[in-house]
């Protein structure tokens, strides 16, 4: 083996990497919030809605969950402009990721909602709680606790999946890596470094989720 590793050129471009890292974090966090909102609303519609609403949500969930994210991205970024809807790369990335995560969240949250026994809701009613109180204390909170592990690992997978948006030239961490690669020709060094960065991010996210679980759910 005659190759000598040279990280110097790669580290010299740290500002690019930092910029990419910030967008990756922004995309991940905003998508998580939007995905959670879509998930809560969609799951409520799927469990408590009328038959038509249930069917529409089911079609949305199955369509998204049975097609690849990269094709969804391409459809929104390259496809929709011909229908008159034009987004810049970062916006298209955000839309595609949110739609994608929303579908997965609906499935997870729905399973959590359905795991609440009917008798719990009846117990709430017999205590004189209002429907809003029942929804908040009897349904949402306990089921969020149950689905939290599944939801948080889906969120970590989403953070890793944001790397795919580099393929529509959204300027995330992975895109910056390919820019540095084309400038320095240090392929191996760049991608190893970026893989390590994602690994650290994944660890930090897992830690943060464990912290949230500990402070919000475990104490009650």
């Amino acid at each position: 083996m005659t190759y000598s590793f040279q990280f110097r050129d790669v580290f010299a471009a740290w500002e690019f990497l930092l910029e990419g890292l910030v967008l990756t974090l922004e995309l991940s966090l905003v998508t998580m919030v939007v995905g959670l909102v879509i998930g809560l609303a969609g799951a409520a519609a799927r469990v408590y809605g009328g038959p038509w609403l249930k069917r529409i949500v089911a079609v949305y969930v199955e369509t998204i969950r049975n097609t690849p994210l990269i094709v969804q991205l391409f459809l929104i970024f390259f496809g929709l402009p011909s229908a008159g809807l034009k987004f810049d790369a970062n916006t298209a990335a955000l839309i595609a990721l949110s739609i994608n995560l929303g579908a997965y969240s609906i499935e997870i949250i729905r399973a959590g909602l359905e795991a609440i026994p009917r008798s719990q809701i009846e117990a709430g009613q017999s205590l004189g709680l209002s429907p809003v109180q029942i929804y908040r204390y009897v349904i949402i909170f306990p089921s969020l606790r149950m689905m939290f592990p599944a939801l948080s690992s889906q969120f970590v997978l989403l953070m890793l999946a944001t790397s795919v948006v580099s393929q529509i030239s959204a300027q995330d961490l992975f895109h910056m890596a390919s820019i540095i690669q084309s400038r320095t020709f240090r392929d191996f060094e760049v991608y190893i470094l970026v893989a390590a960065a994602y690994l650290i991010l994944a660890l930090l996210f897992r830690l943060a989720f464990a912290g949230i679980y500990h402070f919000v759910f475990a104490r009650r």
Partner: protein
Amino acid sequence: MIRELSFIDVLYLIAATRWTLALTAIAFLGGGIVGLAVALLRVSSLAPLRWLGAIYVHAVQGTPLLAWLFVFFFGLSIFGFTVSPWLAAAAAYSIYAGAFLGEIWRGCLQAIPRTQWEAGASLGLGFTQQLRYIIVPQALRLAIPPTVGFLVQLIKNTSLAAVIGFIELTREGQLTTATTFRPFTVYLIVAAIYFALCFPLTQWSRRLERRLHVAR
């Protein structure tokens, strides 16, 4: 050169699907071998072996598949190997699938009560015999629904191989878009083909899972 999108393009897309399926098969085979090793490491009675398995799983599940593809495709060539997209994709997907399948199968192995192992030991069976005759036959039944579920993930994720120039369904879609300039229609067809592959598997996995719950 721009030309009209015609029926023949649809046929080309369907024809390209076989490479998606071939890559899925290779990834499943390679990932299955790696996954089996990982699952066995994770239930081993030696702590350092368990740690090794855990580190592998966390490292792979904490990095994007795209990074693995790029490391193998661009990275290995600097050591003097000529790396074809096939080889890079096969290696990256085996590593990726191995971590997820290993975790799934570990869960199935651990779902078998300890007493089953002990019953085997009291019959005078060794570790491999207990595994072979008592644990695996029971764990296999548990493993089938989530494994089919992961197969759907795998089919969808083979689409990422398009970025290293591996010609499969998504890459064929990109090429068709480049000549016909009809991205919306082309990607809609591509999505429909993926859906046709994945949806029956999703439904099958769900049915298997329901049957398992009834049986218990």
